[in-house]
């Protein structure tokens, strides 16, 4: 109880903690929502490719503008992530290279260029570059109020786009061929959904970093899938899990000395996944184990088949 009061007191009085917690909550909210589609469409790894691909965008934005403004850097990340997405889609559609290979190619090429540019900046720009390499693993402590506003703005755009195209994205994910037969512009919708996904990823880069960001996209959605069979509930749960992980990670890392926020958030969301995988009714491992054991002790009963030969 005392600990809870301490936490609430800290949230109310500590500016840094409040900023970090708020930023992490926004990041969890948006990546939880958009991650649902990545998971349902079997494209979980796209997040990994996009987040790594954003690195050269951050470096280039800094090189071209000399600015350390979050909005400028994130716009660079957005452009690079988007470019990588388009490249992946183009390569998959026009060549024999499969989706996973295209992902691997985009990830390594873009990330390689990003590391190269980062090294160049470190050797030439001097003290001015301070902090750019925090995008690798994220550094939530560097978040200031303006950053949170930027994240909130970008996140609102992503969530609004998702809400407006709700039924179109649902059909695109479930049955794209049928969507095309109805005349929906499937390729455009695909690009739009990918763009929103890039937005969601970019929001988290400063806090969680390019290396771990894909976890924030996949984990909340994968955990949410365990608890529900409805898309709307799954999206809501996934957002809630994302927020919970973000806030918990921020609080825990503030209570323990020298605990980095980004990785702590990822560990929190991993814990949610572990609990969901084990305990969720019907889909959970424990539930299935118990069901299997129940059915195993039951003696075999002959079921009379009907006219179709089906029991």
């Amino acid at each position, binding site marked *: 109880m005392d600990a809870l009061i301490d936490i609430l007191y800290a949230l109310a009085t500590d500016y840094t903690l409040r900023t970090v917690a708020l930023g992490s909550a926004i990041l969890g909210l948006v990546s939880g929502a958009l991650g649902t589609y990545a998971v*349902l469409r*079997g494209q979980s790894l796209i997040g990994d490719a996009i987040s790594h691909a954003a690195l050269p965008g951050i470096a280039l934005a800094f090189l071209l503008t000399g600015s350390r403004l979050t909005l400028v850097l994130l716009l660079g990340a957005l452009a690079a992530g988007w470019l990588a997405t388009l490249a992946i889609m183009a390569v998959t559609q026009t060549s*024999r290279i499969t989706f996973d290979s295209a992902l691997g190619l985009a990830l390594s090429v873009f990330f390689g260029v990003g590391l190269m540019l980062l090294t160049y900046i470190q050797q030439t720009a001097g003290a001015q570059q301070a902090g750019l390499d925090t995008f690798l693993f994220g550094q939530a402590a560097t978040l200031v109020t303006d950053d949170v506003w930027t994240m909130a703005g970008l996140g609102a755009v992503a969530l609004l786009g998702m809400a*407006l*195209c*709700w*039924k*179109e994205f*649902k*059909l695109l*994910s*479930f*049955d794209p*061929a*049928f*969507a*095309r*037969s*109805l*005349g*929906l512009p499937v390729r455009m919708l695909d690009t739009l959904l990918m763009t929103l996904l890039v937005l969601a990823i970019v929001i988290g880069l400063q806090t969680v970093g390019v290396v771990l960001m894909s976890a924030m996209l996949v984990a909340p959605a994968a955990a949410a*899938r365990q608890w*529900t*069979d*409805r*898309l709307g*509930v*799954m999206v809501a749960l996934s957002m809630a899990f994302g927020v919970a992980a973000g806030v918990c990670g921020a609080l825990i890392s503030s209570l323990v000395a020298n605990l980095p926020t980004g990785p702590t958030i990822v560990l929190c969301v991993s814990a949610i996944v572990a609990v969901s995988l084990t305990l969720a009714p019907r889909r959970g491992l424990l539930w299935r184990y118990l069901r299997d054991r129940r059915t195993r002790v039951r003696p075999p009963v002959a079921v009379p088949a009907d*006219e*179709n030969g*089906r029991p």
Partner: protein
Amino acid sequence: MSSSPAITVRDLTVAYRESPVLWDIDWTVEQQDLVAIAGPNGAGKTTLLKAVMDLVDPVAGQVRVLGEPYRAVRDQVGYVPQRGSVDWDFPTNVLDVVLMGLYGKLGWFRQPGAEERATAREALAQVGIEDLADRQISELSGGQQQRTFLARALVQDAALYLMDEPFQGVDATTERTIIDLLRDLQADGKTLVVVHHDLQTLPEYFDSVLLLNVRRMASGPVEETFTDENLRRTYGGRVGFLHPPSEAS
């Protein structure tokens, strides 16, 4: 427009990479016909349906639907894809899948309302699974999945229906329901084109047939077209199993 054939295909060639999947197809479907497309695996049956709906880019040739390009008559065409083409573990229920048939008419940003749900429930009743409206789709049997897809096509209220193997892997009761439904739709003036694998039942179920093996091997009324000779040409001699048991024994 009402006098135009439902489908006119002229000199249609479709290729994936370098190899042709459909070669120089000429084919006409009259309105209110009940047509089967049959042919061995890889004959291009699904591709032909997709070419009619402008879902694949042909190398050459022309397709007209109800005398118009597909784009102009899209809302008059209903599509039943292969049951296996989607992930049935997707988090949604039967009613929701059926409602997807109305997304084209609803337009952007509008969500289905009470009126749409009533239409969807009617379609579910037509295929005999109105009691499954709230069922999670992962809990459906093969026959129930197929009925769900049919209901989704029914709410499109189309003039032409394209169905890809609706009889694949369904139980006998569902098969009966589907064939009755096809006949009802035909009586209502609809045109139906159905990819069908079971050569035993084909002459009983359908009025016309297209025998396809990359090329059009034969097409026309079943009694003239569905001959041993044409089947042998289409399936390459492996037609011993085709004879009805009564003749074989």
